[in-house]
């Protein structure tokens, strides 16, 4: 039905994933890091949806799974934001490199 090859979607997802990954690993601002993680999740979703259409075993299940992922991502953002705000109240900063509690 569709004329766009699977690779096109996958490459787009890969590019978005790479952008998100780069941002998540290099940005200092925690909110940006969260955004980047969302971007990566989106790339994954794109893969799921693309496979549900053009995959080896196509079907609706891929879309169902992407829905689940979106749900979980929303929950993750909510909790992440809550933690961020709590942290901000505590330390008055949102930078990732100030969060070095793992050291102790």
């Amino acid at each position, binding site marked *: 039905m569709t004329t766009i090859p699977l690779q096109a979607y996958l490459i787009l997802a890969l590019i978005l994933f790479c952008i998100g*990954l780069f941002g*998540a*690993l*290099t940005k200092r601002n925690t909110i940006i*890091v969260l955004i980047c993680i969302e971007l990566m999740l989106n790339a994954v979703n794109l893969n799921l949806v693309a496979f549900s259409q053009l995959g080896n075993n196509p079907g609706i299940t891929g879309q169902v799974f992407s829905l689940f992922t979106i749900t979980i991502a929303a929950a993750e953002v909510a909790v992440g934001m809550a933690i961020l705000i709590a942290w901000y109240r505590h330390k008055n900063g949102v930078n*990732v*490199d100030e*969060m*070095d*509690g*793992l*050291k*102790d």
Partner: protein
Amino acid sequence: MIEFAWLIPALPLLTFLLLIVLREKLKKASGYVAVLISGITFIVATLVFLQLIDVGNFLMEWSWLTIGSIDISFGILLNPLNGLMLLLVAFISFLIHMYSLGYMDGDQRFSTFFAYLSLFTSAMLGLVMSPNLLQFYMFWELVGLGSFLLIGFYFYKNSAKQAAKKAFIMTRIGDVGLLIGLILLFWQTNSLRFVDIYQAVTNGDMSGGMITLIAILIFIGAIGKSGQFPLHTWLPDAMEGPTPVSALIHAATMVAAGVYLVAVMYPLYMASSLAMMIVAIVGAFTAIYAATIGLVQNDLKQVLAYSTISQLGFMMLAMGVLGYTAGIFHLFTHAFFKALLFLAAGSVIHAVHTQNIKEMGGLNQKLKLTSAVFLIGALAISGFPLFSGFFSKEEILASVWAEGQYGLFIIAIVAAFLTSVYMFRLYFLVFHGESKLTLDKVKPVPMTMKIPMMVLALFAIFSGFFNTSWFGTYIADFLEEGATYLEGIHHGSSIWLMLLATVVSLGGIALAYLIYVKNALNQENWKTSGTYQMLLNKYYMDEFYDNTFVKGSRGIGLGFQYVEKYFVRLIILFIGDLVTTFSRTGSKSQTGQAQTYTAVAFLGLVLFAAVYMLKGGY
């Protein structure tokens, strides 16, 4: 009886163990125990010897050390040579045990002394009965141990400590030569048994160069033990031990072991004229070298010590000029008169509590017996006609002459002359002249000391007659029986040699009489001369060794200390730094930054994925 020959070394060993363990309980009785057992040992040795005259040879062996296909045994060998030695050692040691009863009386470590004495005797007896070179070496070392313990008996004296250490180390240097020699010999002949070695030599299994090398290495061992130049310096120092010990070491046991070693390995030496030559030269040189030092020493025992070195030189000289029987015969007679001289010296020291002959004089009034036996000993060692030393020394001279070594012959004559000079210098200074000591200080000599001296005096006079061209060469015949390699080298003596020996001996005595009794010669010039100083300081050999080897070794040690401090320490620092740097980096990377951790984890993943892909993983 001969099957029980193993008892001979075992009995004194038993004494040693008994006395060491029970020294607190036995106290005074330990002396009697030791004398009793050494008496029994002597009796057993005599019985064995008597049987040996009939049997000729006896060998018993047990497996001792198995190394793969190599089997080294332990055993007992009896033949004329070691039978004679056995008897000699057991006899002298018995007398000295007895003498020590009186001499060591009242010493705090009375039992310990007898324990050591027995150990020493045991080692020497074991040595002469060894059927193979390894066992010989083992007892050889144990003899060294015995002498070490006895020399250092007065352990609280610093000089005794040094002397003991020196004796052990110097003889060890020689021993290493022997050890190398015996190992080389083993790889040449695949056996350490004397019989196999003789066989290998006669069959010509070894190259001539190898024989010479081994013979010289073994001779180094003999040099160490017998106090030959240049490893002699321990022997005079060994006088730090109690006098009976000096008698035992010098007369029949330790120092004789060197000569005995050469005798045992004689076929090897006969196969190498170079080795023989070296033995003879070292012997002759030592004989005259030690005699010159003996001329000027002022310590009673030191003079005797140098005389021993000199006499051992004579024995080696004899060995080196094919005078096998002459050497052994001299060893035999020397054992008696040197033991006698030491015991007499011991009773002098026991009586006057000094060893400096300058402080003595006129002792022949107070110590009549001692004086008499000392005179006998001195006459014997000087080769006074009809005394034992006369015959043996004359035979040595005959051997040298017969071999055509005229240079060595002259040296030997001079050394013999010097021998009688220094012996009679000693005799006159100690027993004649004015008494410099208050005589009531002189203690009487107990019976236990007198008897051994008298017995030894008898032997010092008459032991020479066992081997004379007049009454029969018993010892020579006995020794040569069965020893095929000795055939045809017996040197007959001649009248002119006897006359020469007599003249030399009497001339020496006369010279000593003139100088030290009549004061016929002015000694002042002599005493200030450089030669005198050099002799008094023993040619500065001790100083030489001290400055070269002793300091050298310490220097190397200190040098290594620097290696340790800088080089090895550097390695520690390097390894330490490596480890700390490593851990520090590790702990630094522990920043607690989740982002960094993730980045590292991601990079690791990428690395794996990339490698996987490059290897064509899809």
